[in-house]
């Protein structure tokens, strides 16, 4: 039972990060019908912005501000930085190709992905960067927390899971309860009709990139407060986020959240109960199975075409 609880805690931690990445994919796909393969690298940049701000604030061992404020500041900085990056990517890599065949922005997205990964490598080298959160208060983020049976749920994991849930709830409210969210949904449903109704499509798309990239920035920090980040993490993280989005139904916001959690569970339980060797095989087999048998995902809507 303890193993199951521990694996579930692992699954929720991993799944929360995957869900935040998946939301970025799904938001952009919903509005632009574009698979933004540069999204994983935006996530990577977010983790580096968080690292940079952490150093500016004195580092984990001797921060200049209280720990709770430190965590909020690095997360907000990463979100803001990635939001700006998202706007720049949209403006220069995707907008000029908006009316081009769908393969063109896809190739552009891959180009942006390589550009970001290589630029970051040139600027910051390949050395892994650790937030060293273990040094905060002699490891209090690791040793404090609460127990479920014999399993300790450390503060750091609670922070990761709760932060992701808060961000997802905020996004849900924004998309479903605000005027801007309504414009996003309208654009997602029918871009031309939305434009005819007076919605500023450029503004909506820009806002969508801001939202998706900010969530990737937050995910980058929530990931890197637990494990070291490198300029190479974007590719695999992006693939996992994409898989989560496909499982949930690409274009569906609740689907991305569910997909992320399912992916986290699949990875964690496979490692725990089947074989540690097989986790990636299982994860990507799930992706293939969904692509073949349920391409609309669990909560996505089927693509009905007029014939």
């Amino acid at each position, binding site marked *: 039972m303890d193993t199951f609880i521990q*694996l579930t805690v692992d699954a929720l931690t991993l799944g929360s990060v995957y869900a935040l990445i998946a939301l970025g994919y799904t938001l952009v796909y919903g509005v632009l019908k574009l698979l933004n393969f540069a999204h994983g690298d935006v996530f990577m940049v977010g983790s580096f912005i968080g690292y940079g701000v952490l150093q500016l604030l004195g580092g984990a061992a001797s921060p200049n501000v209280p720990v709770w404020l430190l965590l909020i500041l690095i997360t907000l900085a990463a979100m803001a930085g990635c939001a700006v990056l998202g706007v720049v990517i949209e403006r220069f890599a995707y907008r000029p190709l908006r009316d081009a065949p769908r393969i063109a922005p896809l190739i552009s997205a891959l180009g942006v992905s390589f550009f970001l990964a290589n630029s970051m490598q040139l600027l910051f080298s390949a050395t892994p960067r650790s937030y060293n959160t273990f040094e905060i208060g002699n490891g209090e983020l690791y040793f404090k927390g609460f127990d479920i049976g014999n399993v300790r749920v450390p503060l750091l994991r609670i922070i990761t899971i709760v932060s992701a849930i808060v961000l997802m709830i905020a996004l849900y409210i924004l998309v479903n309860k605000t005027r801007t969210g309504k414009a996003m949904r309208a654009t997602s449903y029918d871009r031309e009709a939305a434009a005819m109704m007076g919605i500023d499509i450029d503004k909506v798309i820009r806002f969508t990139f801001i939202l998706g990239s900010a969530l990737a920035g937050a995910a980058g920090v929530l990931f890197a407060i637990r494990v070291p980040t490198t300029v190479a993490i974007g590719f695999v993280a992006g693939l996992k986020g994409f898989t989560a989005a496909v499982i949930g139904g690409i274009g569906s916001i609740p689907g991305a959240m569910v997909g992320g959690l399912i992916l986290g569970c699949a990875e964690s339980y496979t490692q725990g109960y089947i074989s*540690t060797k097989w*986790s990636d095989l299982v994860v990507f087999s799930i992706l293939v199975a969904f692509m073949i048998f349920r391409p609309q995902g669990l909560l996505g809507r089927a693509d009905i075409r007029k014939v």
Partner: protein
Amino acid sequence: MKKGISLLLALAATAVVAASAQAKHEAVGTASKAVSCSSTLKIGFVTPLTGGAGFLGQEQMSWAQYAVKSLAKGLGLKIQIVPGDTPVEQGATPAQDLAQKFVGDPSVVAILGPSTSGAVAASTQTYFQAGMAHLSPSATRTDLTKTVAGVKEGTPAFFRDVPGDYIQGPSDANFMIKNLKVKKVVIMDFQEPYSLGLASAVDTTLKAAGVTTIRLSAPNTTTDYSAFVTKVPSDADIVFFPTQKPADAQTFAQQLLEQGKKAKVFGGDGSDDSTQFKVPGSYVSNFAPDITGIAADKAIVAGWQKANPGKTVGSFGPPSYGATQILMNAIKLTCKADKGVIKSRRDILRNVKKVTIKNWILGGTFKWSTKSNDPLNAKFYIFQIQGDGSYKLVG
């Protein structure tokens, strides 16, 4: 009839393309022409300059450059190091591509590296066919120089100036048995040649001594080890973690503490980096001692530090300096025998094992083993991480 002619033409075109491809392959495989010893001679350096093991390649490169700067002139040579990046995350492909590139360039006379065992396995045949010596300062997998279970992956053109896992595996395991009195050990691998070889070597020695071992295997792209830590029994004494990414060893050690597990992490040479792996109580092994403690190396260390301000002396750099020194000496022997011209790369290959170095950077005199392309009498050193993050020699 038209169909028949078209088919014939298509077959003929295919044959021409295939023949020219074969010719090109052969040309690349054997490209070698006489090179004047007074010209600038190039040595390719195949190492991970980027990715999770980028720290290793950067350190090795700085020492190789320093060896050229401080030794080439005295040997009467003009040497240029040409870097080639093999990120460990990208598997065998970059090493194979680089081998084709270096073999095809007649001005590249020898190779430093490949630095990782996987990269050696992927490219050694290409270098061997071209008669090109490749000398690694860090690839330790046993079957690169010795036959293991009927398999020997390395070719006669491959050399290393550090001992292999046939020494590291038993050294680490014997330290665990004799010094740490272990009863249960978890052994990780990362589904790539370096860790698989080393994990098996440790496993064999531990089992022979009656120690219970549990094997876990993680994809090389793993970043979060929580689920693996969950599988570590609470009564395990050690987790042997032969990664090439020291930051991962740090993550694993932290996550063990997070889950309240008492096991200590024991890393191989690939995790020996005091700036990244610093959880107190953990262990690492390495093929090189701390050369800052060797009196004869004082001038070398000072010179390297002057050329690399702000950098600290690690364990991967000095063997790279030594490997460069060996290759340059082999080139000098070749130039002397061939009267100022390197007629063929094979001549350098033949001279590598004739090189001995007095005042070897790792201490003593460097000599080759007569039985394999390994150094004679080399050994591994075991360090324990202290409370202040420093590495203390314990075995």
